Structure formats: C-alpha cells, structure tokens
C-alpha cells in the first residue's frame, strides 16, 4: 500500500484542458500546470474553444472550468459534457474553480456534475492538493434524469432516516430480526477487549 506522504505526481503524459474567464487567470493556471510537468495543456477563454477541443478527439485526463464565466456558461459546459454518452471525456475528472459565489450559483455548482469546487485564488499548493485528491477519486458515476456526474455522496451513510433509498445498493437503517441467539456478555466482552490467548 502506498503511503500518502510518499506519493509523487507524474503528469508528464497527462493532457489538461483549462477554461477560464480571462487571460490573466488562464495564464496563472497554465503556469501552475507547466510547473507540475504537464506538457499538453489546452488553454481556452471561450466555451466554443473548449467544446471544439472536447469534440475533436482529444482525450483529456483533467478538465478545469471557471465558475465565474458570464451567464454561468462554465456550469452549462460541464452539464453538457457529462451527457455526451459517445464522448470519453464525459468521465474525465472536472474541477471547478470559483471566486465569490453568488447564492444563485451554489446549486448549479453542486448539480452540474463536476467532481468538486476549489476556491480561488489558485495557488500551486491548493492545486497540487486538489489534483492529488482527484487522482485518488473512487466515487462511482451516476446518471439520472436530473444529474450526471460523480456520486455527490462522499460517504456511504445511506439515505436519511425515514427516507427510502433510491438505489439498489442503499441499505435500510431499519434493523431486521436477529439471525441467531443473543451473544453472552462474556462473548461481547471478548469482542470488545480481545486478549492474547496464552498458548
């Protein structure tokens, strides 16, 4: 098992798409990834450029999208991409970067299908931590009528009390009947405080 403290990042073969709302922010982000060793970076300032990259056969390992684009088009881009069933990029990890978030944008950020949101300013430290986090992402992909993207539940606590789960693997919080006789107190004690057997 790899120790997290020893993990290294090799992005030399990764292809990254950056969609930002202005040149200065795009340049900063681009420089961060150049510093991380990424050689293939597609920098886009408009939705059209980004969609062209997606549709013309480039397979991305990571996509970073600005939440602060006019009209919230960054969210729309992610939503559309997650629905492109014929395009392999729909499963690519997507990170949203956001400055101040207006109340109207919070639900859109949650529901567009991105893996997660990172607050600006984007510093090398923040980005390294988040890329590492994304690389270890193991959540399943969910497609419903209203949402397509990684499972928004980071922990599997099951559905809230009193609500029936909507997924086949949701476990009910209600306990069923016991499958056998009750354990004795000594069995319970041994379970909670196991002692080394004297051989």
């Amino acid at each position: 098992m790899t120790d997290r403290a020893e993990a290294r990042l090799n992005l030399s073969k990764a292809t990254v798409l950056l969609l930002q709302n202005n040149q200065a922010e795009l340049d900063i982000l681009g420089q961060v990834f150049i510093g991380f060793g990424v050689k293939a970076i597609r920098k886009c300032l408009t939705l059209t450029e980004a969609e062209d990259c997606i549709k013309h056969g480039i397979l991305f390992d990571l996509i970073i999208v600005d939440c602060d684009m006019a009209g919230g088009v960054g969210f729309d881009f992610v939503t559309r991409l997650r629905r492109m069933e014929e395009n392999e990029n729909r499963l690519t990890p997507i990170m949203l970067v956001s400055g101040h978030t207006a109340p109207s944008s919070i639900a859109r950020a949650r529901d567009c299908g991105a893996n997660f949101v990172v607050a600006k300013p984007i510093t090398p430290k923040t980005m390294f931590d988040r890329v590492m986090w994304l690389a270890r992402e193991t959540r399943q992909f969910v497609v419903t009528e209203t949402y397509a993207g990684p499972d928004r539940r980071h922990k599997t606590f099951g559905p809230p009390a009193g609500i029936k789960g909507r997924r086949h693997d949701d476990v009910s919080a209600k306990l069923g009947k016991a499958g056998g006789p009750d354990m004795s107190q000594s069995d319970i004690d041994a379970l909670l405080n196991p002692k080394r057997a004297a051989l």
Partner: protein
Amino acid sequence: MKTGNTFKYENRLAKSVVTRGGMSAAEALSSAQQAVELVRDPTIAEIDANLKEIYALGDQLKTVGGFDEAGLQQLYICANRVVAMGGVFGLGELGQAAYSLCELVSRFQTLQRFHGQMVQVHLDGLRLLRTPGDHPAAIREQVLAGLRQVATSVV
C-alpha cells in the same frame, strides 16, 4: 420513480500518482512557483487595472446615487477578478477585501438595494490593502473585519 444508473469507471488521472519518478509535493510546488513567477508583472498590472475600474465604478455609482444594476454587475466582475488573482502574489488581504465587496454587491443585487457609503468604505479598504507593507498587520486585520461586518449587515 425511475431509478438512475450507477457505475464504476476508470479515473484516468489515477495513473499520475506514482511511487517512482514524477515529482514530490515539494518539487512540484517549487517548480510551479517558479513558473508562476513568470507572470507576476502582467498579473499585478491586471489587478491594478481592475482596481482602477472598481474606483471609477465607485464614482459612477456615487453619482447615480441609487440602484444601478449594470454598474453593480461590472463592479462585481472586477472585484471577483481581484479575488482570483490577489492571493497568488502576496496580496491575499486585498483579495479578501475584494471578496467582501463581492458579497456586498451580491446582497445588494438580491435585495435590489444600494448604499453608497458601504461601497465607498470597501474602496478605501482596497486602497489601503493594495500596499500591505505600509500598514501594521493589526490594522489590516481590523480593516478586513470591519469590511466583513459591513457586507454581512445587509440582510
């Protein structure tokens, strides 16, 4: 109710986490910081350009005196750019003041309300925090705390 489809998929980024080769966190951060330094001057110039526009919009809003939707939206956009860039090159407190201005404008937009002095005090804060070295840390903290208090008082 129609159920959704849930499936496991290959995370292409996972192969970038390695035990040999590549970069350690320290190496990656050092390399990235060096690369980012190359855009320091244009970024600072961009921050100053946005501040200049913010100050001009502040004057414009003062003249109008009431709720000016277009002016407020432009003020929000410029301040949000300062949020994004300020912290990259040691102007993190300027970025926080800009964030507070965004919060204030956002609340004005939601409530269709406007209060010129609340904007002006933020502009004064931005001017002060643009040169953080000229002011003691305690003063800068008080200014930021005051700005946050002003912004969150709009309910």
